C-alpha cells in the first residue's frame, strides 16, 4: 500500500524492506514500506516497541540503508551516495535529537551547539554569532560554558535541540525526544521544537509513545511489525 501524506515531501520511501541478521535469525525491521513525509511538518511515528520506528528513522536519517526499495531525502536517492557523501549530506541536511541527548561530554554547551557548523565549514565569526543566537533561543545563553554534566536533563535536551537546529537542516529526526524527561520539561521541549519549526521552517519527524507529543503532531504514522498500518493528518 502506498502511503502519501502530501504532495510536497521532505522524504520518500518506496517499497522499502529492511532485514537485520541476528545470529542465524533474520529479523524484519521494515516490510514493503512506501511513505512520503510532508515538508515543514511535525510528523510523529507511533507504534509498540520493536515495531520498526527506529529503523524507519535510521533510514530517513541516512545512517542505514534498505535491503530493498529506495529512500529519498530532500530529493536525493541515498543509495547513490558513498560513505563520505552520506556524511556530508547528513552534516548539511539532517539534524538528530537522540533519546539520551548524546552530547559530547568534553565540549561545553556552546561547543556542542557549534559542532555541526564546524563540520559544514562555517566561518568562525558567523559560527559564533549563530551559536550564541541559538543558545539564547533555547534559553541557555547563560549556560554556554557549562559542560553536559553540569546541566539538568531538560537543559541537555535543549542543547541537543539547539545542536540539531543550528545548521538549519531540512529534516530533524528525534527518537523518543521526551522519553527521559518529566512531563513539565517534556512539554516545554515540545513547545520549543514547535516554535523552532515555525521560525526555521524545518520538518520534524519523531518516534514516540508520548501522548503529549502526539497531540502536537501535524501528521501521525502508525507502524506495527514493520508495516505502516495507519496515517493520519491532524484536523
Amino acid at each position, binding site marked *: 500500500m502506498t502511503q502519501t501524506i502530501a504532495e510536497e515531501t521532505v522524504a520518500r520511501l518506496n517499497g522499502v524492506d529492511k532485514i537485520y541478521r541476528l545470529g542465524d535469525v533474520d529479523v524484519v525491521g521494515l516490510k514493503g514500506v512506501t511513505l512520503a513525509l510532508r515538508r515543514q511538518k511535525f510528523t510523529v511515528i507511533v507504534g509498540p516497541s520493536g515495531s520498526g520506528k527506529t529503523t524507519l528513522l535510521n533510514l530517513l536519517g541516512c545512517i542505514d540503508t534498505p535491503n530493498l526499495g529506495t529512500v529519498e531525502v530532500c530529493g536525493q536517492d541515498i543509495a547513490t551516495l558513498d560513505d563520505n557523501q552520506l556524511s556530508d549530506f547528513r*552534516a548539511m541536511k539532517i539534524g538528530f535529537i537522540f533519546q539520551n541527548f548524546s552530547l559530547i561530554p568534553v565540549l561545553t554547551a556552546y561547543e556542542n551547539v557549534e559542532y555541526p557548523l564546524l563540520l*559544514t565549514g562555517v566561518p568562525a565569526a558567523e559560527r559564533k554569532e549563530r551559536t550564541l543566537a541559538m543558545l539564547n533561543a533555547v534559553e541557555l545563553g547563560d549556560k554556554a560554558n557549562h559542560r553536559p554534566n553540569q546541566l539538568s536533563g531538560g537543559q541537555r535536551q535543549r542543547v541537543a535541540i539547539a545542536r540539531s537546529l543550528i545548521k538549519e537542516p531540512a529534516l530533524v529526526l528525534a527518537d523518543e525526544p521526551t522519553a527521559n524527561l518529566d512531563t513539565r520539561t517534556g512539554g516545554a521541549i515540545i513547545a520549543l521544537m514547535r516554535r523552532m519549526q515555525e521560525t526555521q521552517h524545518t520538518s520534524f519527524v519523531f518516534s514516540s509513545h508520548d501522548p503529549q507529543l502526539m497531540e502536537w503532531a501535524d501528521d501521525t504514522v502508525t507502524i506495527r511489525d514493520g508495516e505502516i498500518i495507519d496515517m493520519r493528518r491532524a484536523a
Partner: protein
Amino acid sequence: MNLAYTVSIAFRNLFRNARRSSITVLSVATGGIAVLMFGGFVANIFHSLETGLVMSGGHLQVFKQGYFHFGAGDPASYGIANYDEVMQTIKSDPQLGPMVTLATPQLTLFGVAGNFKEGVSRTFLGVGFIPSDRRKMAQWDRYDMHIPIRLSGMTDEQTDVGIVGYGLARVLHLCDALQVKDCPQPPKKAEQKAAVDTDIQALASAEAQTAAQQTQAGDHPKIDLLAATSQGAPNIVSLTVLKAQNQGFKEMDEVFVGMPLGLAQKLIYGRGTKQATSVVVQLNDTDQLYQAVDRLNQLFQEKGWGLEVRTFHDLTPFYDQATGMFRSIFAFLAVLMGAIVLFTVINTMSMVVMERTVEIGTLRALGLRRNAVRLLFIVEGALLGMVGATLGVISAIILSILVNASHLTWLPPNNVERIPLRVNVTANPDLILWTWILLVVIATLSAFFPANRAARLTVVNALHQV
C-alpha cells in the same frame, strides 16, 4: 574538521579517564626512562672505552705495509726508517695538521726479559715510546670522561728507565723491590735447592741484602732485555724498572715492558739506522678519523713510502666487539620497551573506543567522516605518546643528573682502574630526540588499530551499543 580542533578535543578526552591516561603516560615514560638511561650508560661505556684507547694508543697508527699481518714476528724488517719525515709531513699537511693533536714514533718488539740475579726470565712484549709524548696523549678527553691518568713516571732524559706489567714483575721477582701490593711471594730458593753449597747461599744472601738496601735508598731494580737485532744477532740492554703498572688483563700484564724509544731502538737496531715500527697519530676529534685515514693514504701514495694506516678499530678488535655487544643489548631493551608501550597504548585505546562507541555513532550521525573519527583516536594516541615521552625525557635527565652527581664508579672490562659511572643523557641530544620520536610513533601506531576499528563502525550499530 580542522586539525587544531581535533587535537583540542583529543586532549580533553585524555582527562575523561585521568587515572587510565596517567597509567598509560607513566608506562610510556618508564619506557623512555629505561631507554634513555641505558642509552646514556652505553654511550658512557663507548666514550670511556674510546677515550682509554685513544689516550694510550692514539686514533690510528701508521705502519710499513704488511706489518699488521706479518710484522709482529719480524719487527726489524718492518721498521719505518724515515719516521721523522713521516711525522713532519703529517704535522705540516694543511688538511691533516689542524686535525692532529700529536704524532709520535713507537717501536714494538719481542724478546726475553731476565732478572739474572734471581735466576728468572721470560719472554716479553716491549713498547718503546717517547715518555713526554705519552703524557700529552694521556690528556685527551674529548668527552669529559675524567678518566684518571696513569703516569709512568718516565722522562725523556732517563734513557734506560722503563716500566713493567704487574705479572712480569711477579715472574721476575720484582714485587718487593717495586712495592707491588698483593703480589704472591716466590718459593724460597733454599727449599728448591736444598743441596746448594752453604758458601753460595751466603753469597746470594749477601747480594739480596745489598739489593734490598739499594731499594730502600731509592734505587730501582734492573732487568736485562735480550732480543734479536735487525741483522739477526742477539743483543742485550739493561733497563731500570721504575715501577710496575697493571695492564688490565693478565696476558698483557705478564709480558709488558715499556721503555724509552731510544733504548728499544738500541736493542733492535744496535748501531744501525734507528727505526720505528709505527707512528702513532692522535686526532682532536674521533669524527675526523676516516677523513684523516683517507688523507694519510693519499699522502703515502703520493710519496711512494709503502705505508699503511690502521685505526684503533683495527688495532683493538675488542672495542668493536664490546660496542657491538652493548648495541645489541640496547636494541633488545629498546624493542622490549617499544613492545610494552605498543601493547599498553593499544589496550588503552581499545578500551577508549569501546567506551565511546555511542559517541562515535553520534559524531558520525552528525556528519563526521570516517577519516576524521580515525584521526581523532590516532591523535589521542599520539598525545599520550607525546606526554609520556616528554615526561620520560625530563625524568631521565633528572635521574641522570642525580646519578652523575652521586660519584659512583665502576670497573669496565679490561680496565685497570675504576672510572666514574656516568649516564650521558644530556650529552646525547640525538638519543633524546630519537627516543622521543620513537615513543610517539609507537604510541601513534598503537592507536591506529583501535582508531581504525572506531572508524569502521556502522553508525547504527555504534548508536545502539549498550
